[in-house]
């Protein structure tokens, strides 16, 4: 029996937008989220604001969550996972398991996987950044949390730092790690955080050590020029290899490549611009729904670049960072596209089923 609804796996920005879009055209949605809250990574990781407009993340996500709550067409299941799946487009049978162990069988017409990404664990990094040794070494996520609370301090002292640096490409663009891709957003996010830090601590010196600055489209002046010109953030071309402690400071070793000399400079806080890796949820759904993963480990799509959401499994679509590093605009765009394709799959199969039964076919 064909399903008349769309299953959306993952309640982050992509999943929420897709749910809203599917419901907007009158198709029922079942939105499944393994955590006990909606909002995805921006909420779990306490993002302060979105790149590049610096819109407050909590406000934005609350708006997205409100948009799907209290809608009779959208059924929200928190603390629930998809644990089995079979069937084909128009007629998928999935098993949902709640945290208490209760299961429920569901029949849907199409599926959108929006399971997002995980932040790279800096303990796996090739370079010696000391994240698990020094509390003043942070990731972008640790920094977001402090920026959200409008209280940016050196963890070891609790006092505002005077010298802060970002190290780009942590966990990305590294053959020795096997992460042979760019995580796309970290240059923008680091610049955004640099601006936010300077707004809180105008006298602090902020450095960004990079290999290349990835400033797509309007990020160029919205972030890069703004950070340099309005906030005097120092961009230094040359990446860091080691972070160690010397006395009261951290010390970072790198090369200032445009000046052509090795450098060793003290810092109070080091922020590692960690990249994206396929999330645990993505890996799990790939297994459960037999979705192939492409060579970087993310969900494979077919038809790129003119189709960003269709997986090799008919009737299953992907939206957001489950398919690879994406910024928030990419995720939202994909969600809209996936919603449209998911709805058309449902309708096409419902229509075919209706035609078949009206032609006096087999029993129902």
């Amino acid at each position, binding site marked *: 029996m064909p399903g008349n609804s769309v299953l959306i796996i993952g309640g982050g920005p992509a999943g929420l937008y897709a749910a809203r879009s599917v419901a907007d055209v009158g198709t029922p949605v079942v939105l499944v989220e393994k955590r006990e809250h909606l*909002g995805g990574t921006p909420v779990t990781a306490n993002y302060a604001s979105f790149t590049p407009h610096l819109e407050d993340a909590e406000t934005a996500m609350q708006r997205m969550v409100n948009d799907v709550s209290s809608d009779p067409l959208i059924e*929200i299941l928190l603390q629930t996972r998809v644990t089995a799946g079979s069937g084909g487009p128009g007629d998928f049978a999935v098993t949902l398991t709640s945290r208490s162990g209760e299961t429920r069988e569901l029949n849907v017409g199409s599926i959108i996987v929006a399971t997002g990404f995980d932040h790279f664990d800096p303990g796996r990094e090739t370079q010696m950044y000391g994240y698990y040794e020094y509390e003043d070494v942070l990731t972008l996520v640790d920094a977001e949390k402090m920026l959200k609370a409008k209280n940016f301090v050196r963890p070891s002292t609790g006092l505002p730092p005077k010298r802060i640096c970002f190290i780009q490409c942590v966990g990305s663009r590294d053959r*020795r790690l096997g992460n042979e891709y760019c995580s796309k957003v970290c240059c923008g996010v680091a610049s955004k955080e640099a601006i936010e830090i300077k707004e809180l601590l105008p006298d602090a010196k902020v450095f960004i050590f990079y290999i290349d600055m990835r400033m797509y489209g309007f990020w160029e002046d919205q972030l890069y020029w703004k950070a340099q010109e309005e906030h005097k953030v120092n961009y230094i071309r040359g990446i860091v290899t080691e972070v160690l402690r010397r006395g009261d400071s951290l010390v970072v070793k790198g090369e200032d490549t445009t000046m052509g000399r090795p450098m060793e400079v003290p810092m109070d806080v080091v922020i590692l611009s960690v990249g994206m890796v396929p999330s645990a949820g993505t890996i799990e759904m790939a297994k459960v729904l037999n979705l192939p993963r492409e060579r970087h480990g993310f969900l494979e799509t077919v038809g790129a670049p003119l189709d960003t959401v269709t997986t090799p499994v008919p009737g299953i679509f992907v939206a957001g960072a489950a398919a690879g590093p994406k910024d928030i605009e990419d995720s939202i765009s994909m969600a809209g596209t996936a919603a449209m394709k998911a709805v058309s799959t449902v309708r096409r199969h419902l229509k075919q089923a209706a035609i078949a039964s009206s032609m006096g076919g087999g029993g129902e």
Partner: protein
Amino acid sequence: MSGEVSIPVTAITRGTIPQRVFQRDPANAPTEDIREKLFELEAQGEWIVQRVPDDNIEVMTKYGRTKRIPRQFTWHHKSCGQCGHIPGYSTSIFWLHRQLGMEYNDPTDQTSCTAWNYYASATSNAAAQAAVAVRNFAAAYETGYFPMIHCGTSYGHYKETREQLVHHPDLRKQVRDIMAKLGKPLIIPEEIVHYSEWIHAMRFEIAKRRVFDVSNITVTVHPACHYYKLVAEDAIYDPDLYGGQRTAVITAVVETLGAKVADYSTWFDCCGFGFRHILVQRDFTRSFATLRKIERMKEEANPDVTLTHDTGCVTTLDKSQFAARAHGRNVGIPVLSEAQFAALAMGAHPYRVCQLHWHSVDYRPLLEKMGIDWQARWAEFQQDIERLRSGEKQFLTWEDADAR
């Protein structure tokens, strides 16, 4: 439930900073496991893989994989620099084996790995280096004992050679033909094992036999570049030390013995050995060792001793301090291998076994702090020398080494 409640996002923010604990997952290791390749090639008839003896201890390497370290029945691949001018280093390694009752052999059918010359002068090539390596491996195989490498440079070099032999069939063929002319099969050991990995694996047994209290000794550790930077995944890591982020091979030993390990900000820096530099361009080596390692250790950690696990590092750090002192630099840290330190802690004779008279920096304050009566020991050793001089004895023996 059909979404009748609007879920506020702020309720979810975690209040406490989560504990930073790094978990390794060997299933997620980013590199191939070279040992699988060794066995694949063996199955294709390319060579014979010498297996690690059954009496072994498992340790963890960088990506969470297991490496097996043989406890005994080892063929000791000696180091030029150790045997040549730090004889207490190799003697201590042998002494530790003997004290623990571990069977080993000390072969004369062994050449240098020749890597010191190779890295210094490039008067060699990939084929010669590989052939020298496998000739030594074949010599070990003929005795049935498993190679145990004494020098850090040899160890790193052999790890690289292994990679090259696995990935270049032409090289394998060339080397196999050379071995055939020598009447030897092509052998590769299942693991390349460094003696410091043996000491690490055996550290609890060593600590049990400790007779001197070292809890008042502060140690700085210098890890050898060729141990952990070459073929980086094959080096010992411990999730409880350095957050699993730095090689723990020596540090674990020092802590198990009960001494204090102090950190310093140039931990990852090379000592400055340079292979060629230490012989013919010593200003570089001396400057680097003094300014980047010894002075930093002294300023930041003020250790009683610095311990390392490689020939070149002991040489560089020990021999660079004399001239530096003449220039008023802040130096004066005795330099030992961890083998010698462990042996001293176990009661080894500082001169008969640890051969400290070959070292440059004054080690006597360290011995005094450990409670070792070096004057009495030196007097004993002088008597040994007299017996050799008079012809009463030809050589100092292992029995003499432990006599009291």
